[in-house]
């Protein structure tokens, strides 16, 4: 009976994995076909295997600039999110102060606010500040949901470190910055990694704000893709190749944090 049960579970898992991978595979499959082949025949493997679609993307600045812009935006956002979230998370995990609980709740509500709500004011605000169509504009806009998330995850990891370590360090004579950088940070390495992963994830995948706040110079790949669709008709092959390339960074990042990811999710305490 045990054996049987085990097989049922495995079967379910395999079915799910097929469900999860098939749509992605289909896009990968298409990215190696020509548009003619896509529209004329129907096959599980490319009949006329071609790298052309990828060549298009890597040679046309209209395409590859999108990736560079996306990476810059995500990097800026990650850096700011983690830098400001670290001290705040430390404060929440170590001290109680007036209004701490309300503040924490208020931060979380921002994670829960629909970006669509901020669309108008962001547009106005960044126009006024002359930030429109810059990397910084999108990175800042993404702080709305990434900073609360970063504080939340980091606070969880920090609460797992006994406070006595802090005190021992002060007794030993460490100053706060030195203690924080040389002793505390190495202890929550995993937490910082997981936080970076989540910041990456949410900033990388967001479209609405990114598209609204950019036009040319800072246009991220997600926006490039949606516009290309409407502009050049249906260039399915190139679109598929572009889609595949957006998955690659995510897949790489997730491989690095695979050991911590379960733990990172477990930190989701309220």
């Amino acid at each position: 009976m045990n054996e049987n049960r085990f097989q049922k579970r495995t079967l379910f898992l395999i079915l799910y994995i097929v469900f999860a991978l098939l749509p992605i595979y289909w896009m990968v499959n298409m990215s190696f076909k020509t548009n003619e082949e896509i529209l004329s025949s129907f096959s599980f493997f490319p009949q006329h295997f071609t790298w052309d679609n990828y060549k298009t993307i890597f040679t046309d600045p209209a395409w590859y600039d999108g990736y560079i812009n996306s990476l810059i935006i995500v990097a800026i956002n990650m850096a700011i999110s983690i830098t400001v979230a670290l001290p705040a998370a430390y404060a929440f995990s170590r001290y109680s102060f007036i209004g701490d609980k309300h503040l924490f709740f208020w931060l979380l509500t921002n994670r829960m606010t629909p970006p669509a709500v901020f669309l108008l004011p962001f547009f106005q605000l960044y126009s006024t500040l002359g930030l429109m169509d810059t990397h910084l504009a999108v990175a800042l806009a993404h702080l709305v949901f990434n900073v609360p998330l970063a504080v939340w995850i980091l606070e969880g990891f920090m609460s797992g470190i006994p406070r006595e370590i802090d005190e021992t360090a002060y007794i030993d004579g460490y100053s706060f910055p030195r203690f924080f950088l040389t002793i505390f940070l190495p202890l929550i390495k995993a937490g910082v990694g997981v936080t970076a992963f989540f910041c990456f994830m949410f900033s990388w995948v967001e479209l609405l704000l990114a598209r609204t706040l950019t036009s040319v110079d800072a246009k991220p790949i997600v926006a490039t893709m949606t516009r290309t669709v409407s502009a050049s008709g249906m260039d399915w092959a190139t679109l598929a190749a572009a889609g595949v390339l957006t998955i690659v960074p995510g897949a790489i990042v997730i491989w690095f944090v695979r050991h911590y990811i379960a733990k990172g999710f477990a930190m989701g305490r309220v």
Partner: protein
Amino acid sequence: MELELEGISKRVGAQPWLYDMSLAPKTNAVTVLLGATQAGKTSLMRIMAGLDIPTRGTVRVNGQDVTGVPVRERNVAMVYQQFINYPSMRVADNIASPLRLRGEKNIDERVRSLAQRLHIDMFLDRYPAELSGGQQQRVALARALAKGAPLMLLDEPLVNLDYKLREELREELTQLFAAGESTVIYATTEPGEALLLGGHTAVMDAGELLQYGPTAEVFHSPKSLRVARAFSDPPMNLIGAEAMNLGVQLNSGPALSISLPGLVSKHLTKALTVGVRASELRLQAGEGDVALPGVVELAEISGSDTFVHLSTSAGEVVAQLTGVHYFELGTSLTLHLNPAHVYVFDAEGMLLVAPQRRGRN
């Protein structure tokens, strides 16, 4: 270092954690803070260390008021009951860290000699997480000792260790402290540990400092019932009694002939409490002994001693017998006690009579 606490009290919110107390631990010797959990030992230590500021009162070091001085500017060392080390540093770096911060010389050499003294020199290149609990606590101790701080605070440092390891490490600690280079404050919940450490003892209970003095003296002449309760393991047998002509009458038990001090007011002698240490109850009757018959509830064997729980007409009592003894549950047994070896407390719980100390000239 000379440490002096004067009129210290601590409240957190509306809750008092420490009531007004003054204490001057003996300089460059060991002082044990003895009390159950929540007695206020840790709160008091944190004030001594400068981790917390008392609500009222002053902390003086060598005569200077240091009450508000933050911990970083004081020269103290502290060891916690959890094994606190820097997990991201190797053992050697852990021990060296306070030395490096002060930019001292011959760090490697000093780390090595300390590690040798605490028998962890073979683990210097490992990380704390790779060590057993006992070894981790040795690292924490080595780091605390490395500072050579004149004030050393240990908050139940052995409580999370296996009992044999505790025995070993405790002995090594007494040897380290015997050098008398710093004032040592050692918190523990175990009366036995306080006795093994010797030195002086301050008994605490529910945020109050009850008694301070040389350990053996506090043990043998507890000022009050509360001190006696806190400083006895197994718990002192306490039996209600009444004063009578030539001694005391145990409630529903035998009478003991004890001479009570004359100058005690009547109302205090009405409801007395007689305290008998478990070790004063024995199987063989001696001269002048009083018999206490009962039924065995359980015999606990610790190896060196057997603790017999006995249900008697005067209530439940525990006797400590040397060596291994077997008693079936429910058998009848008569224990004997010498009236000269009991304590008597008055109605307010203050000591009236203490047994004479034996084995002394």
